[in-house]
């Protein structure tokens, strides 16, 4: 309602506020002022009333003063000339005997955002810094920061900075913390407030007087302090020990972050700190506030990246409550999968099984995917459950199960027989798992007796098929099937090729069909060489499984928004899709023009980072950029460079769209290579290095340094995992 006839409303208010009868009646007057603020909050422009509100500020009623000040702060920038009128009142209030009035006036005066304000507020602020009342000092200290932000480009006033540093010794804890905050803002360009040894120790000694908000903030400031010696370090840690168990989660977590950072050279201390904090962290995972719960879960996930065993005994805490929102359930399932071990596998699977029939299809599919991941270790038990789910005959469940089967066969070849037996039963696969089913039929057609008949069904229904991806998969699968069961397949393969070449409108499908046709023309043996790749890749499950990361990998983002905002995704999705890319080398020769390299990829649903080559970079440009840019990520791969010939490496990288610029020949030490690629608008440069003289301990392992312009963390992670996948695959091949 305030949006309509707003001008009328403002006029009416103006009339009322200037009515002497109303002004005489304090209660009525205040009611009208309240009304003005209400409209202001609702988004109505009431700046026309500024003059009347300035008049209203001259009152003894503090509640009314507060309302008027709120109004003034909002509109001062629109009416700078009128706001000057209010300053007199405010300056008078700054000298009021009541500290509350003094503080209030000073705070609001500093909040006026208009040019030329500095000259009016400087004197009251300096006086406020020396005020007897701590309330006024608090306001004055932050006032310094506000004053600086009004004129961000002027020189820093040395006397104020010195005064603020001196006020760090103030008896009032809030003044101390406000000093830190103000100094941080004022000295932002110089790297923020300096925490030297006396200041750090002073802050540590004051920790007990602070309230929890100040505690967690001081702990964050202390992150930039480096103790000089181990003795000092351990003194600090023992002082902070009790805060690890604080009843306030934010204090406990901030303390943990400081511990992890300070004790980065003492893994045992880090482990102890993590153990201590596991109780408060678990408590947040069960907190009444679901937002807090979510934050707790995200941080538990982060801790588990280095210490997967820490929460092992508490796995029941991560069972989903039925009324919890889906985003919490997803996180809990991700954690449960990581926590599975020999003792609890039966219980966890039973729990996950009960989510599979959930009303929400997304949740059900996520639960099935979770079982699928556990199946990579405990295949037998999981296969029983997955097979049982097929009996429900619900599309979203069946499709998720078939996709899991495909991944399972790829990762654990020992389960192939059991899967093939089950797949026999489900011939009518729902929409989105057709590709997975076709892949299974093509790859293991020799073990599925009904495979040709299922395939025939698809070929007969080809005219109604819309997805070209399914058609391509069908082509590949039929050719593979033809190789192992020629008699049953020959006829339908002919029909399929004929249709795809003669009638298909999609160029990709047609090209693929032509390729198959020409391959077959060159003979069966030739075709077999090209089409059949590896049937499974057990080494991949090691890669996607639990590796313990060093704590330093995530400690810098711990207790920030990073883990919550979802940019901290697990890298494995990218690893899977990237590592499938380098198919057999013969295929590469035959498919130079093909844009799609995932011919025999069992993976199509995962999200991919798309890399592209783009125009080539000259050596000079690369060198210049390399010298200009900062290193964004440096990562030790944990394995040496592939022993294959260098041109194989180059070709493999080319295949995943990574261009090699230069590398040192053969067996020279240190060995270096410079590579680059493009991805969604950014250019990624990287250096591979083995045998660095500066880091003698790890000379066997390959180190990757990545630079990028412009920065896009998501792309970097994708790039590193793709690179890792390629190198790993080459390593496996050559060994």
């Amino acid at each position, binding site marked *: 309602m305030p949006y309509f006839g707003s001008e009328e409303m403002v006029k009416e208010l103006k009339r009322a506020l200037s009515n002497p009868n109303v002004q005489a009646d304090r209660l009525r007057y205040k009611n009208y002022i309240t009304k003005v603020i209400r409209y202001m909050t609702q988004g109505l422009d009431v700046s026309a009333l500024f003059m009347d509100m300035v008049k209203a500020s001259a009152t003894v009623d503090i509640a009314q003063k507060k309302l008027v000040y709120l109004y003034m702060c909002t509109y001062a920038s629109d009416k700078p000339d009128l706001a000057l009128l209010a300053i007199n009142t405010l300056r008078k209030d700054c000298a009021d005997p009541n500290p509350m009035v003094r503080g209030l006036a000073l705070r609001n005066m500093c909040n006026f955002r208009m040019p030329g304000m500095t000259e009016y507020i400087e004197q009251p602020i300096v006086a406020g810094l020396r005020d007897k009342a701590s309330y006024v000092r608090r306001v004055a200290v932050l006032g310094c920061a506000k004053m600086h932000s009004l004129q961000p480009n002027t020189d820093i006033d040395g006397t104020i900075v010195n005064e603020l540093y001196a006020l760090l010794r103030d008896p009032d804890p809030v003044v101390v913390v406000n000093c830190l905050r103000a100094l941080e803002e004022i000295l932002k360009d110089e790297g923020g407030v300096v925490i030297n040894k006396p200041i750090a120790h002073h802050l540590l000694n004051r920790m007990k007087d602070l309230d929890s908000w100040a505690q967690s903030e001081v702990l964050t400031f202390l992150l930039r302090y480096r103790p000089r010696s181990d003795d000092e370090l351990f003194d600090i840690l023992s002082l902070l020990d009790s805060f690890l168990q604080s009843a306030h989660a934010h204090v406990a977590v901030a303390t943990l972050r400081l511990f992890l950072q300070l004790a980065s050279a003492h893994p045992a201390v880090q482990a102890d700190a993590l153990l201590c904090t596991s109780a408060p962290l678990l408590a947040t995972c069960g907190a009444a506030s679901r937002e807090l719960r979510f934050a707790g879960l995200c941080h538990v996930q982060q801790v588990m990246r280095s210490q997967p065993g820490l929460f092992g005994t508490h796995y029941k805490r991560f069972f989903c409550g039925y009324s919890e929102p889906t*985003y919490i359930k997803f996180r809990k399932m991700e954690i449960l999968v990581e926590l599975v071990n020999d003792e609890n596998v039966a219980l966890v699977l039973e729990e996950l099984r009960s989510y599979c029939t959930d009303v929400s299809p997304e949740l059900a599919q996520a639960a099935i995917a979770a079982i699928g991941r556990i199946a990579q270790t405990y295949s037998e038990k999981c296969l029983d459950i997955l097979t049982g789910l097929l009996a*429900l005959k619900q599309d979203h469940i069946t499709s998720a199960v078939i996709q899991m089967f495909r991944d399972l066969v790829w990762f654990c070849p020992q389960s192939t027989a059991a899967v093939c037996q089950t797949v026999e039963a489900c011939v009518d696969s729902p929409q989105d798992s057709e590709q997975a089913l076709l892949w299974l039929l093509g790859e293991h057609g020799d073990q599925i007796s009904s495979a040709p008949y299922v395939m025939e069904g698809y070929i007969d229904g080809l005219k109604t098929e819309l997805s070209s991806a399914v058609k391509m998969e069908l082509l590949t699968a039929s050719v593979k099937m033809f190789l192992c069961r020629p008699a049953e397949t020959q006829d339908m393969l002919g029909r399929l090729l004929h249709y795809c070449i003669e009638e298909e409108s999609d160029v990709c499908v047609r090209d693929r069909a032509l390729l198959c046709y020409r391959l077959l023309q060159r003979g069966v043996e030739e075709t077999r060489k090209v089409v059949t790749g590896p049937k499974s890749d057990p080494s991949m499950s090691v890669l996607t499984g639990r590796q313990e990361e060093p704590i330093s990998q995530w400690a810098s983002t711990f207790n920030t928004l990073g883990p919550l905002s979802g940019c901290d995704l697990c890298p494995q999705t990218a690893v899977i899709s990237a590592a499938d890319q380098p198919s057999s080398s013969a295929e590469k020769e035959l498919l130079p023009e093909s844009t799609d390299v995932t011919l025999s990829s069992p993976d199509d649903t995962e999200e991919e980072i798309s890399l592209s080559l783009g125009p080539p970079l000259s050596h000079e440009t690369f060198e210049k950029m390399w010298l200009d840019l900062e290193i964004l990520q440096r990562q030790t791969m944990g394995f040496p460079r592939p022993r294959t010939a260098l041109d194989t490496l180059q070709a493999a990288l080319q295949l995943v769209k990574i261009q090699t610029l230069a590398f040192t020949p053969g067996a020279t030490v240190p060995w270096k290579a410079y590579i680059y690629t493009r991805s969604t608008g950014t250019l990624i440069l990287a250096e591979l290095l083995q045998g660095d003289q500066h880091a003698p301990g790890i000379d066997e392992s390959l180190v990757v340094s990545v630079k990028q312009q412009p920065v896009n963390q998501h792309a970097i992670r994708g790039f590193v995992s793709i690179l890792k996948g390629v190198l790993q695959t080459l390593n496996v091949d050559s060994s």
Partner: protein
Amino acid sequence: MISQIFILSSKGDHLIYKDYHIIMKHFRGEASKDSINVFYEMVTALSGDQTPVVMVHLCSHKDLHFIHVRQGGLYWVASTKTNPSPFTIIEFLNRLAALTKDYCGSLSEKSVRMNFALIYELLDEMVDFGYIQTTSTDILKNFIQTEAVSSKPFSLFDLSNVGLFGAETQQSKVAPSVAASRPIMSSRGEQSGKNEIFVDVIERLSVVIGSKGVLMKSDIQGEIRIKCFLPTSSEMRIGLNEELSIGKSQQKGYSSAVRVDECRFHQAVKLDEFDTFRILKVCPSQGEQTVMQYQLCDELPCAPPFQLFPSVQKDYYIVTSQLLFFTFSCSTALNVSITVPVPKGSVSMSQELSSPDQTAELQPKNKALLWEIPRFPGGAQLSALFKVDVPGLSSASLLEVGPVSMSFELAKQTCSGLQIRFLRLAPTQTGLSQRWVRYVTHSDSYTIRI
């Protein structure tokens, strides 16, 4: 560092809006009031499985992060351009909501609307320039001038306190459940004489019972919460069960001991008598605060409150009969609702319930039938028989029935057995003060597999 704080109603109306860095608008040219609308569009566009807690709005200069919590049906949002601790912001927003509840009496769109001046005043003292200054009621109460406006709809229940001849019934031993929902600061109002203090023991129970009635998971999250209306704070002594033991190692030989796995206390609690006498000493400040949090995992000292004996048969229909038994004899369960999943495509249902106040309905959209019992007396046993008509019934459909989930509220009962032995205020306290101790157990998640 917080840039803005705002409170929105569920329909997106702006109730409270405070921009701490508006002074920078001239120089940096962003973070104007439009960000509220941006936030509301983002939060309403989210699908169920996306994470709403932290959202990023890409600005031209620097990304703006929205962090929000939902309390009382409202969005409590903070926006920031830095990368602060999510725990701090979330706990601060929760605290803001709690303080609002303390000062306004209850938490709803209406109470926030009516008391917006008061909330602005609170925010002004709590946060300056985006930095949290204080959230303690003891400090805040010196600065807050505005009085709360509480809305009390006329209710027949209020009359139940009035005796036969219009006099208040002093004998009433039970505080009405609405007694604690009034503003803490209405000192000059008509309730000035009521110096009340409420000590609540609140437990949240999450239980999974396996298909053969085996207790698979049990977990209690408990807290002792004080809601204090005393104008001046004086020391209060809260005595807990003397035989309370903490931690797994301290378990005593006899089984009657009340045990919790771990507990954490508010930093103002003095624990010098806790180790020997299990006495907490605290000077409660006005308003609500949590004095002690505790948890107990995997070992319920009593039987789980509800036992369900389900049977599912396939006939022409799916027939499921449920026999529900409430094991606690001295308590009453309120608002019990039981959700039984049914196969997809269920069309209709017929029911036989054991008493008339129960209701049951089929919700085909949620693939579930909902059985509700408003009031469940202790030690009682209820049964229900449902016949669900599912076209195209197969034996696999039975797999879709279950697990059953329940939600309920137990009054006057804690599952851990934690009790408050006594509640003493320091003798210096003058005037009449009424002390109330209340126990309540909520079901966080109560699942029974079939």
